[in-house]
């Protein structure tokens, strides 16, 4: 009984995205044919350009890293019943804080100290941005979708002001470099990765995913958080302070997104640049949706969207790379639509099997 229900859970978690993927493939086929190309050839090019060589794979790793962070951020919010659309601003704030702190350390400080301090600063900055909508919701009942969206503009505007007026390198929109705080690039270890931006931040992202899984499903705080997300009235009845959980969830969510800023700032360019977060926050929503707000799903979905994004560049010669944007949309729509459908099909299929084997 128990083992069967575990299998059933895995099936219900995995099949909807796979069905969505299949639908996206079919939609892609139609588009490719419309451009007069061979679908098989285009898909093969896409795979070769991403998982087929070390550079492409490195780029997938790099792009997946940020998406894991923002995907986890959105997922944690969803588990608490909150829709955090502010990952974009939280990511940018985290990236800026990492660069800003690293800039202000004396040159003699050991690299590891600067890196750790920058990471803490990134998480704190993201968490602080997350705290505002959390507190507004808990205190005044302000809807987090509105406040997180609006806060994006405020945060990005403020960062733009500070960078342009205070800390930018002349004639650019980025801060000075902080080479001492650099995370190890994989290209430095394995030469095949040369030119790709893959760096040690992916390991931190995977650790963050493990931590989120532990937090959600093993701790008491996670029990309370999921209870609030599922049935706030029951959680309140169970002695959980719903407002506190909302605030805490958005702070952690913001901190996860903020920590994502180190991928670009410490791992790739070694400076904060205006607009680096562009799109990554919103794609995090797609990652959380396709990954069903589960850390394992989020990691897989982040790799999937990173592959599409990098693959778009690889197939640009055959079809316009905007085709990839269309496919992203198709996948998101198909997942959203297929979850209940697939679940229903699975359940009636299982019922039919149960009926045939006569255990009814």
């Amino acid at each position, binding site marked *: *009984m*128990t083992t069967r*229900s575990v299998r059933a859970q895995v099936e219900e978690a995995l099949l909807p995205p796979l069905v969505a993927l299949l639908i996206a493939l079919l939609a892609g086929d139609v588009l490719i044919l419309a451009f007069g190309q061979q679908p098989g050839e285009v898909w093969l090019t896409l795979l070769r350009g991403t998982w087929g060589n070390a550079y492409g794979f490195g780029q997938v790793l790099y792009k997946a890293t940020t998406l894991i962070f923002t995907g986890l951020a959105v997922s944690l919010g969803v588990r608490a019943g909150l829709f955090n659309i502010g990952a974009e601003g939280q990511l940018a704030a985290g990236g800026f804080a990492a660069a800003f702190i690293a800039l202000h350390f004396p040159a003699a400080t050991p690299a590891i100290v600067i890196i750790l301090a920058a990471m803490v600063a990134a998480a704190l900055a993201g968490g602080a941005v997350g705290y505002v909508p959390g507190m507004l919701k808990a205190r005044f009942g302000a809807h987090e979708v509105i406040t997180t969206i609006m806060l994006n503009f405020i945060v990005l505007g403020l960062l733009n002001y500070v960078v342009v007026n205070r800390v930018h390198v002349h004639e650019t929109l980025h801060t000075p470099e902080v080479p001492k705080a650099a995370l190890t690039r994989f290209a430095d270890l394995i030469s095949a990765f040369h030119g790709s931006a893959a760096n040690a931040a992916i390991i931190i992202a995977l650790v963050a995913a493990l931590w989120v899984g*532990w937090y959600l499903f*093993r*701790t*008491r*705080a996670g*029990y*309370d958080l*999921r*209870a609030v997300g*599922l*049935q706030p*009235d*029951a*959680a*309140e*009845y*169970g*002695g959980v*302070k719903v407002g506190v959980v909302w605030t805490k969830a958005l702070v952690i969510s913001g901190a996860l997104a903020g920590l994502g800023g180190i991928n670009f700032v410490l791992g790739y360019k070694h400076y904060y640049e205006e607009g680096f977060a562009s799109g990554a926050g919103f794609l995090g929503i797609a990652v959380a949706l396709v990954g069903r707000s589960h850390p394992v799903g989020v990691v897989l979905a982040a790799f999937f969207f990173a592959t599409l994004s990098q693959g778009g560049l690889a197939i640009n010669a055959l079809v316009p790379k905007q085709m990839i944007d269309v496919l992203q949309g198709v996948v998101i729509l198909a997942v959203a639509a297929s979850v209940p459908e697939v679940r229903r099909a699975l*359940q*009636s299929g*299982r*019922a039919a099997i*149960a*009926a045939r084997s006569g255990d*009814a």
Partner: protein
Amino acid sequence: MAPENSAILMTGVQKRFGAVQANRGADLSVLPGEVHALVGENGAGKSTLMRILAGLYAPDAGTVSVNGKPVTGWSTADAIAAGVGMVHQHFMLVPPLTIAENVVLGREPRRGLAIDMARAVLEVKGVAEQFGFAIDPRRCVADLSVGEAQRVEILKTLFRGARILILDEPTAVLSPPEIQDLWRVLRRLRDGGGTIVLITHKLDEVMEVTDRITVMRHGATVARMATKDTTPAEIARAMVGRDVVLPGGAPIPPSRTTAGAGLTVRDLVVKGPRRDREVDGVSFVVGTGEILGIAGVEGNGQTELIEAIAGLRPVTSGTVSLGGFDITRLSVQERGAAGLAHIPEDRHRRGLILDYSIADNLILGDQARYTTGATLDRAKITGQAAEKIKRFDIRPPDGSLPARTLSGGNQQKIVIAREMAGNFSVLLASQPTRGVDVGAIEFIHAELRAARDAGKAVLLVSAELTEILALSDRVAVMYGGRIVKVLPRAEASIDAIGPLMTGAGAGAPAEPAA
């Protein structure tokens, strides 16, 4: 009987939802012009069968015919066209609109592009008079009492031409006089040639108003009988499959002498969604070893009273104390630690987290005790679950199953097990047997009596007067946010309480309690 004589004939109906077989070969035969009771425990498949009849679901197997015509698998539109209408438990009315506007909604008489209101009022009035409803179609639905709103709901169905009426638990929200009004309406419909199927689990109603009874158990039809030839005990036996002690049937053991105050409420005022004083200066004491029952039509402040005592709703003024210890300003968790247990009225909204496992639900409110460091102690959680599942006979006995998959009675047992297995001195039991089967009612009543006999103070709120009378040592009647009267059990009877529930004694000052 021959199928062509039946208004409704359903044979061998099967319907499966996922892993749940809701109907397994259910039969139903209803003659034209009768009031027919469809009874059974929760989850027996009554509602599914009726939804198939109303065209909401198609059966997996079996046949359905109405007035002799085969209609298996028809649509809701077909059902309405053939005169089959369902009156739902939850009203589907638009409060700011008038009765006439609500009734004609979807088939408004028109004049050009505009609705012909004068004709709508006239038509609705015509149908109302035909069936003996004393109702002014120009009144606003928001101003109606619950009983009146239900009559509008029935009128709506009749207006659409329904002559076969299905009513799903229609008395849950009504006071005894309103129930009597409903019976009058149903009898008049029947005498006018209408056919009525009454889904219910209240056996006194079955005995009072119906002509024939179909009993369902585990998705199948297990008995058919004429009401005049049977007894409530016989119906209950058919529903459960064994003998049961009916509430009210057993003599009440005298409670032990009350030693002191368990729960004291003084001048409590609570703000509600509709009124500023939803609880309007309520005072009472529940002694240790006593069950105080609060009778009243739902929506007279009982929910707000219980939630305020439980810490789920802010108190405007007044105090709540447990054995002399003031808990008015404490959090839910602190109240639990002080000895307060609470069976909430709505287990689907408050009492359970439906997607959590049985084991996880059994620690809700007591998470701290199952935590070491930051993490939950899984072994301890599984252990306590196994123990409580065994002691309270929760089925299926697998703590890893989501609470959602259990029947209503077993879900309620999870709540009971959690609240009553630990140490508590005061229990708030709000609608403790709502939507649970007869077998589970018996069990829950026994648990409540056992708690009383062990010296706990129990505050019982129930919409079922029979339940209040079966369990309470004293009965308080609540109306309009006030306690109208407190009666010792010996003086409490349906005849004494019924009028008080409608506010008949509201003018009189509340007697000082205890």
